[in-house]
């Protein structure tokens, strides 16, 4: 079967959010929609599925299997869910019920679950085993890694054999290895004759999937064609800009500086650090010095202990053994942390102006500095009157940068500051951060799972690799590489 979408318009109180005249989906040929946040690409997927928020209205038609559905009525596709079309959710960890075992959550999606739960469970067990999760069938979601949760969600979404799978930002927050596994899963669906529509801002995922790519900007499709052509020889200036925003293609004045100056005073000196978690050694006998003005990146796959190491270096967490020494210049708030999810690092129901007011009063910062920084990071002062939930993720992360920079820190620890942002927003955010870091000559400790980002930003990289050796053996992990 194939699917045909015609004249789709999604709008919200008169404003058009998606305007797509035609879309053809064929079995075995993946279609990937890329674009920045707010381009309408996710809404397009939800309009097809019939899961748009109630405040949005859709118009248009969808033809599947010879039947035409009016997209204005979201309920007419409900009976197709699971059997004909299925959605691979954005955050698999949140999409799994925390109180139910993995196998049950997969089995309940099977068409036979109502009449013959035993065979549905057997089928679920088989699917999980085929995905390499045989041992995790009876696990609860909180014990799974992000990549494992993604596979459980994939099994749950596809157990009822829906030929059409819509994946909405499936690689958000996943590291390179987990993303490769995800691409494998999606291809597996295609090889079985399925239709695949993927929404992503991750161009690497689009490259791995192949097929056709469609670029969206401000509700419209601005370029489409085979993945290879669109991503290698883009015709539209916006597509070129999107590709240039990938860290591998960055060219900024603050990049690729000479390696650290050994004469600068040390801010953080760590010796012989060891930390284990759940019987797994995260790092052992690790020594590291961060000097004033240096930019150090800690990279590695999810779960390897990067954030833990960062927190140990900041003395927010205790090492199993070893010592961390801080220079006196780091006292009095001159050591700041930038968090991964800015929405969680601002109090949700307090206007931003009040959150900043507290910092300004507590550290006696001249209030004019806030205005200067708002201006430097190109943020409108009116944003401060809003609550954190009312500004975009990228804007909020820039506000979080301002909050750390208000105190003229000697060192900033940025923990995956852009892993939840799209490429263009990521570049904008990192540029703002690096401008300020350069202007204030402050040291930067960056934690990221993105090696190209680490390479673009840091003078020096520390790559943590997950320990595969059996328990008890201690392997030092000091793959410190200087980038000339």
């Amino acid at each position: 079967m194939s699917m045909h979408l015609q004249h789709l318009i999604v709008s919200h109180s008169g404003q058009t959010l998606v305007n797509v005249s035609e879309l053809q989906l064929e079995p075995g040929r993946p279609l990937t929609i890329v674009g920045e946040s707010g381009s309408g690409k996710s809404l397009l997927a939800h309009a097809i599925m019939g899961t748009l928020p109630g405040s949005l209205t859709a118009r248009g038609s969808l033809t599947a299997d010879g039947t035409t559905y009016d997209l204005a009525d979201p309920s007419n596709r409900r009976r197709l869910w699971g059997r004909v079309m299925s959605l691979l959710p954005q955050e698999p960890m949140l999409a799994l019920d925390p109180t139910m075992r993995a196998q049950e959550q997969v089995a309940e999606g099977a068409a036979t679950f109502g009449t013959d739960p035993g065979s549905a469970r057997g089928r679920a067990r088989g699917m999980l085993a085929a995905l390499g999760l045989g041992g995790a069938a009876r696990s609860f979601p909180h014990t799974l890694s992000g990549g494992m949760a993604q596979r459980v969600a994939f099994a749950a979404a596809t157990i009822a054999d829906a030929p059409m799978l819509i994946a909405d930002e499936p690689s958000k927050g996943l590291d390179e290895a987990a993303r490769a596994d995800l691409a494998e899963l999606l291809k597996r669906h295609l090889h079985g004759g399925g239709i695949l529509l993927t929404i992503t801002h991750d161009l690497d995922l689009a490259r791995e999937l192949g097929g056709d790519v469609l670029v969206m900007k401000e509700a419209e499709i601005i370029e489409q064609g085979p993945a290879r052509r669109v991503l290698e020889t883009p015709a539209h200036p916006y597509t070129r800009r999107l590709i240039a925003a990938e860290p591998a293609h960055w060219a900024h004045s603050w990049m690729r500086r000479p390696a650290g100056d050994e004469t600068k005073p040390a801010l953080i000196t760590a010796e012989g650090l060891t930390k284990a978690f759940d019987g797994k050694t995260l790092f052992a006998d690790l020594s590291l010095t961060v000097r004033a003005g240096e930019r150090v990146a800690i990279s590695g796959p999810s779960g390897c202990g990067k954030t833990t190491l960062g927190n140990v270096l900041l003395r927010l967490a205790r090492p199993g053994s070893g010592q961390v020494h801080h220079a006196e210049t780091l006292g009095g708030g001159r050591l700041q942390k930038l968090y991964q999810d800015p929405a969680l690092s601002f109090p949700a129901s307090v206007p931003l102006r009040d959150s900043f007011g507290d910092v300004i009063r507590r550290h006696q910062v001249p209030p004019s500095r806030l205005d200067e920084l708002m201006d430097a990071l190109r943020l409108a002062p009116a944003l401060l009157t809003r609550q954190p939930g009312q500004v975009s993720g990228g804007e909020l992360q820039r506000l979080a940068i301002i909050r750390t920079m208000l105190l003229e820190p000697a060192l900033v620890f940025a923990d995956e500051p852009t892993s939840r942002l799209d490429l263009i927003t990521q570049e904008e955010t990192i540029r703002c951060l690096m401008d300020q870091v350069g202007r204030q000559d402050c040291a930067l400790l960056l934690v990221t799972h993105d090696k190209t980002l680490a390479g673009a930003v840091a003078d020096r990289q520390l790559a943590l690799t997950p320990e595969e050796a059996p328990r008890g053996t201690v392997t030092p992990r000091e793959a410190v590489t200087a980038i000339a």
Partner: protein
Amino acid sequence: MNQLVRHESFLVPAALVLRQRVIQAVAVALFVSAACFAIVQSLPGDIAFRIAAGRYGYDQVTAASAEAVRADLGLDRPAWLQLLDWLASLARFDLGTSLVTGGNVAGELALHLSGSLQLAAAALVLAFLAGTAAGTLAAFRPGGTLDRALTFWVSAARALPPFLLGLVLILVFSVHLGVLPATGHGESTNIVLPALTLATGLSGLFARVSRDAVIRIRQSDYVRFAATKGLGGRLIFIRHVLRNTGVTLVPYIGVQAIILIEGVVVIESLFAWPGLGHALVHAIFWRDVPMIQATALALALLVVLLNTATDLAVLAIDPRPRTSQAAS
């Protein structure tokens, strides 16, 4: 293998909870005994006179009979010696004899305890069923008529003191309508009014908490995912909404049960229901020290027991660890 891991993951924390609660129970027993003893000692009036009045009636109380009581019970000994005496008996699980009736305190306590537990259980079941049913229904249309009526109910039920509500119920159902007995014990209808009074106050919070939980869970990613997996509304409700609402509600049952223990003292006296609260009030009135000590202790340990049961129940239904320490 997996089974083993699962059991370990419940039994180990369960053992930790039990150990902690047992230590707490001993500490509570010591503290409540000492506090009760100190409070009784500091009450105005001569204890011996009040006990003599309790034993022989007010007409028979003379200085001589009071002295006889004093000598009989050793009330002239130093206070600390009397306290030590009580603690030593307690360590042997001997609650002593009532100063007034001369009966075995443990026997009387068992009677009152079962009375209180009957009443509390009836009130809790009633409040839970009515409250969560109303809250869940309201959650399906937030801002609808039922939801607004519920908000009014919640505030009204919390604002009305239980003794006042009890009096109103007695006036309506016993005095005017004459359909239910106001006081007494032994017939099945006796429990209705006191249980209803207690349940009304509790139902509001159950309704509110379950409403908010159901609204939150219905908007959660996992309920939406369940829908796009192809599950019908009924199946989603039973398998995901109810289950997760339970995780939120069970700790509240514990909190509510403790409020109930406090409410029982007033309500039992009002409806003359033979329970711990009723016994405590009488024991205080007659300065029946062993009885005061025993009932206060029973109420305090009941609170510890309820907290323990809540902890274990939450541990059993919610597989997530209490403290999350992510590796990365």
